Every structure is written in C-alpha cells, then in structure tokens.
C-alpha cells in the first residue's frame, strides 16, 4: 500500500477515535441544587443561586474538574420544604446528580435529609441551624456558621462590655425561633440573663408595642434582636423612635448592606456578628481571609452589579468544598467524595477556615464570625 495513504488512513482513524474518546470522556459532572430563589427567603436563595452559576462558569472556563465540565442543575424551592423534597428526589432519581449543594433554609434542609441518607449522596447545606449537623449525619455537611455560634459571639462581646441582663426580641420564623432557642441555652455560660423576652410576627410592620414593654423593664442593659428579613430593620427604627439608648445587637441574619439601607440612620451603633466578607476592603493585608473574600467580592459585584452578601458566600464555600473533594479523591464516586469532604483541613473559605472531621461536619470555630459595628452607615470591625 502507498505509504502516504497509510498515514492518511491512520490519521483518519486516530481522529475518529479521539473524537469518540472525547465525546465519551466528557459527560459533565452534575452538581444539583435546590434554593429559595423566590418566596419569603429569596434574599438567601437569590445570591446563592447567582454565586453557584458564577463559579460553575468560572471553574469550567479554567478547565473544569478532572477534565470534565461542571453542570449545575438548580431548582427553585420557593422556601417550601415540600417542594424541596420533591426537587431533591428529582435531582437524585431523574437528573442523577453527583452531589448536592443547597437548602437555603433549615426547614428545607431537614426535610430532605432522609432522602439524602437513603440515596447516599454527599450534601452540603447552606442553612444556619445547628440541628443540621448536630447530631452528625454521615452524608450531611454545612457551610454557614451556626446560630449557636452567633449567640456565643454576641454574648462574649456583651460580657466584655459588662452587660449581664438583656432583653431578647425575635420573630416568628424558623431562623428566629432557632436562634432564640440557642441563645437561651448558651446565655448562662457567659453570665447573661434574659430578663425580657418579646416576639413579633415576621410580617409585622410595627414593633413599638413590644419594644415599649421592654423599655419599661429597668433591668434591661442591652437588647438582642434575633431575626432576619424586613423585621429587624423595623425593630431598629422603632428602637430609635421610642428613644431606647441601650446597646442593640442584631443577628448574622441581617448581615447585608440592605439592612443598613432599610434602617436609615437608625442602624448606627448596632453590633452584629458577621463573616469577614462584609468588611473585605477594610481587612488588613495580613488577615488570612483577605485574599479569598476580596476575590469573591470583586467577582460577584462586577458580574451582578449588586452588593455581595454572606449568604452567597455560603454557596461559594459549598461548591468549592465539593469540587476540592472531587479533585482530592480523583473521582466523583459518592462515597469517596464524602470521605474527602469530611477530611477537609485548613481550607480557607468565605465563612472561615474549614477543618472538618467525622464528628464535626461544619468545621468552623468562633473565629469565623467577626464582631462588626455600624458607623456612619457602613461596617467597621470591632477590635
């Protein structure tokens, strides 16, 4: 046979084989997600969704994971635990995803855990309550620092200001109730006594009644508002309106510029625990988190033209934990990925440095929260 034709044939075969191989080798890695992108928890789910989309694109642009592209399959649960359940079933059975990063709210997360355990698929939750990882569940991890940690951070700060008796005001939502419960249980550890306990409905528009009752109590040295959404801003405004002057603390649930905007000038002097992300630019260069948070802040804000929020940061951490685990395990095998996530050590995310273990599926400690104070309408670090 002609030599040239031989080579030609060979090249033909090789290219067909290469294409076939490439097509065969390129099924995407599927990351499933269910988020509250609409509905009452939309300000959690919306930045989470945007963050996941942004970073899946970035990771793909940089070559993907294990030579494969990532595919994000994300459903909007609207904050409903029932919808979340059906969507997770869909992700597992129909879409056949390799791992799940999602669950904006605790209710949704708890509802799907039985499905996760049955399907033996690694799941990283983006919700706040401590019950998600306590007791530890083999396949369930989470990235946000817990509400209990937030209480501890706040109480430690109060203690340093010689505050020992406080008023607690919280809303009707799951986050509020869980945080209230946690705060009540850890308060004695810091020598704090809750002498006034008021509640409001999270959709209420006026809390002067409850705050007035609190003001009548002469023992109250500071007020803690465990809430999120619109209500804490209203509480803050009402607080100033009726002339209360004791220190006001908010929860990490309002760790976004929106809270300051809604409260108007009333938020000055308020303290709250939050991730370093909110003061990214003000961090000293020596701060170990500076690089990660500034990078995320710039990427998110330049793409979406909206302020970055800590909730989106949870999604960043969740996605990267899964991707890093897959790289470390050199596989998308669910059990191997799970093991790799569980052995995450010294990885710096937006929420803090993660050090997971078989008994700790969160991996953060109190240093994950910084105490911030609002001054002149902006965040400042409390030293």
């Amino acid at each position: 046979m002609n030599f040239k034709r031989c080579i030609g044939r060979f090249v033909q075969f090789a290219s067909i084989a290469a294409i076939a191989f490439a097509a065969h080798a390129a099924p995407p890695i599927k990351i499933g997600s269910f988020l509250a992108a609409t509905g009452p928890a939309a300000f959690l789910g919306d930045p989470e969704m945007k963050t996941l989309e942004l970073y899946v694109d970035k990771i793909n642009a940089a070559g993907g994971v294990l030579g494969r592209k990532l595919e994000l399959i994300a459903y909007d649960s609207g904050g409903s635990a029932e919808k979340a359940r059906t969507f997770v079933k869909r992700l597992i059975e129909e879409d056949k995803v390799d791992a799940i990063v999602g669950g904006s709210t605790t209710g949704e997360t708890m509802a799907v855990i039985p499905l996760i355990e049955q399907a033996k698929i690694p799941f990283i939750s983006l919700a706040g309550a401590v019950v998600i990882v306590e007791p530890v569940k083999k396949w369930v991890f989470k990235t946000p620092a817990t509400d209990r940690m937030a209480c501890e951070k706040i109480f430690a700060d109060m203690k340093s200001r010689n505050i020992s008796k406080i008023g607690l005001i919280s809303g009707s939502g799951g986050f509020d109730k869980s945080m209230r419960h946690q705060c009540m249980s850890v308060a004695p550890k810091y020598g704090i006594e809750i002498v006034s306990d008021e509640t409001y409905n999270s959709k209420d528009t006026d809390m002067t009644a409850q705050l007035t009752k609190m003001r009548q109590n002469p023992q109250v040295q500071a007020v803690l508002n465990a809430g999120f959404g619109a209500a804490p801003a209203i509480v803050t405004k009402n607080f100033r309106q009726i002339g209360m002057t004791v220190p006001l603390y908010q929860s990490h649930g309002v760790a976004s510029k929106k809270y300051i905007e809604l409260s108007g000038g009333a938020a000055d002097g308020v303290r709250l625990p939050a991730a370093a992300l909110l003061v990214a630019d003000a961090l000293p260069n020596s701060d170990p988190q500076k690089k990660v948070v500034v990078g995320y802040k710039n990427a998110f804000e330049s793409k979406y033209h909206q302020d970055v929020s800590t909730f989106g940061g949870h999604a960043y951490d969740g996605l990267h934990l899964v991707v890093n685990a897959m790289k470390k395990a050199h596989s998308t095998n669910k059990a191997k990925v799970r093991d790799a996530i569980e052995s995450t050590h010294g990885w710096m995310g937006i929420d803090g440095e993660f050090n997971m273990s078989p008994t700790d599926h969160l991996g953060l400690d109190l240093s994950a929260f910084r105490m911030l104070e609002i001054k002149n309408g902006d965040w400042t670090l409390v030293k």
Partner: protein
Amino acid sequence: MRAGLLTARGGGMLALAAVIALLPLALANNYFYDVAILVGLNAIVCIGLNLLIGYAGQISLGHAGFFGLGAYGSAILTARFGWPPLAALAAATTGVALLAWLVGRPILRLRGHYLAMATLGMGVIISIVLSNEDELTGGPDGMSVPPLSLFGHALSGEKAWYWLVGALLLLAVWLSLNLIESPGGRALRALHGSETAAEVVGIDSVRQKVMVFVLSAVFAALAGGLTAHYSGFITPGRASFLHSIELVTMVVFGGMASTFGAVVGAAVLTMLPQLLAVLKDYEMVVFGAVMMLTLIFLPKGFVPTLAARFAPRERK
C-alpha cells in the same frame, strides 16, 4: 349503586382504575412515582372539597387547616407519644371531624364572602397555632414524622405508597359518586340551587351543610396524615392560606360539581409547577397566566366544559 359500566359514572371509575393500574409502565423512576403519589393525595382532598364547593355550593378558604391538623395530629401522636401510625391516623382524622363539626355549626350559617372569610380566619388561626407551639410541633421549621406501618411492617418505598394511594383514591371517588346520587346528595344539590326553596321543602340546610363540611374535612385530614407519613416531614406551611388557595384552585380549575374534575384539577396543578420548574424566574408569571386564562375561557372548569362540548345533544 347502578353497576352498569355503561353509565358515565361506572365508565369513569373504570377508566380511572385503568389509569392507576397502567401508569407505572410510564413512570421511569421514583421521582415520577413521587409526583403521582402527590397527585393522588391532593386529589383525595379535592374530591372532598369539591363536594363542599361544587355540590353544596359553599366555600372554604381554610381547608389546608384541616389538612395540616390531620398531618400534625398523626405526626405528633406517632413521633412524640409513640402511638402506632394507623391508630394515630385514625385518631387525628376523628379529632379533625369533631373540630369541623363544632366549628361548622356556627360558621355555616354565614353565606358567600362572609363564609369565605370565616373559613379563611379559621385556617389562619390553625396555621399560626401550629407554627407557634414549637415544643409540640417543631415550630416553623417543622418536624420529622415516622413512616406508616401496616400491621408491623413499615410502608416504605414509592411503589408501595403508590398502590396504597391509588386504592384510596378509587375509594374516595366511589364514595363521592355514591353520595351525590343518594338522597343526602340530592338534598345537597337542592341546597345549592336555592337554600330557601330547599328549606321550604323541609331540608335542614345547616345540618346538611355541616355534614358535608365534616366529610370534606375528614378527606383533607386523612390525606394530610398520609402525606406526613409519606414525606417523613411536615411543616406548618401545609396549613397556610396559600395552600388553601391552591386546593380551591384545583377544584375550580378541574370543574366544580365534578368528582373527576377534582381529580383532573389536582393532577394538572400538581404537575404544572414541576413542568414549569425549568422556567425558574418565569414560573410564577406563567402559573398565574395559566390560572386566569383557563378560567376565562373555560369558566365552568376543565372537565365540565369539555364534557359539555362532547356530550350528545339531548333530544327535545
């Protein structure tokens, strides 16, 4: 009951039974079974609600409250007090029936929008209580529910549930069709036509209304309890005003005064959000538009309007 398969009623039931029996061939995986089960459970509630809205001509904007009470009743008795699930389910349903009877007597003397508001208020009160009593109910984040076990064996897996729900759905349809044709049912329809005329003929309108109210509450509570055990989880959102509206929409969409309409309405409106999920941000707009357009162009609801189109003209 006239057993003729040639009657619309018998034929309808046969068709439904056939669909239930053959559907698994089209259900590719557990996700599809899950949707089918949810359709079935919603259909059971809607059949009961249809008796109230379509036949008795009343309205309830608070039926999710009964659903939620049935769900939580069964959940709390099994999870917190260790009752066997069947007993818990029965107790919860009976409790809701009692509540419906107590509440129904004074409320059902109201008419029209006042009745709507009263049922709405009742539903809101139930959902707030469920959300607030977190020691018992787990609060707004909900609580886990143990699975249903029949005679010692836990019922798990979508396939087993599918057959259970399918059987119960057929039972519910049969009950509903029977009731409508019975003397009680005819009294009901007389009520719907004109309450005053019905009373003139000697029908105790309030008593009839309360009976249907209680029956529809029982359907809702039973479906609620089953949903809780199936999902393994329950949140107070199931008793919310929004859920009540969803249920009424299913009944009206499918066709009031039509048992099969209730089933169709439940099926379409349970599957629609799943189909529309791909639309993400646009889902709400499309859903609202579908609701409006269907009722504007098919004001009697899906099934009755289509049935009228295809029904043979009556000989004069």
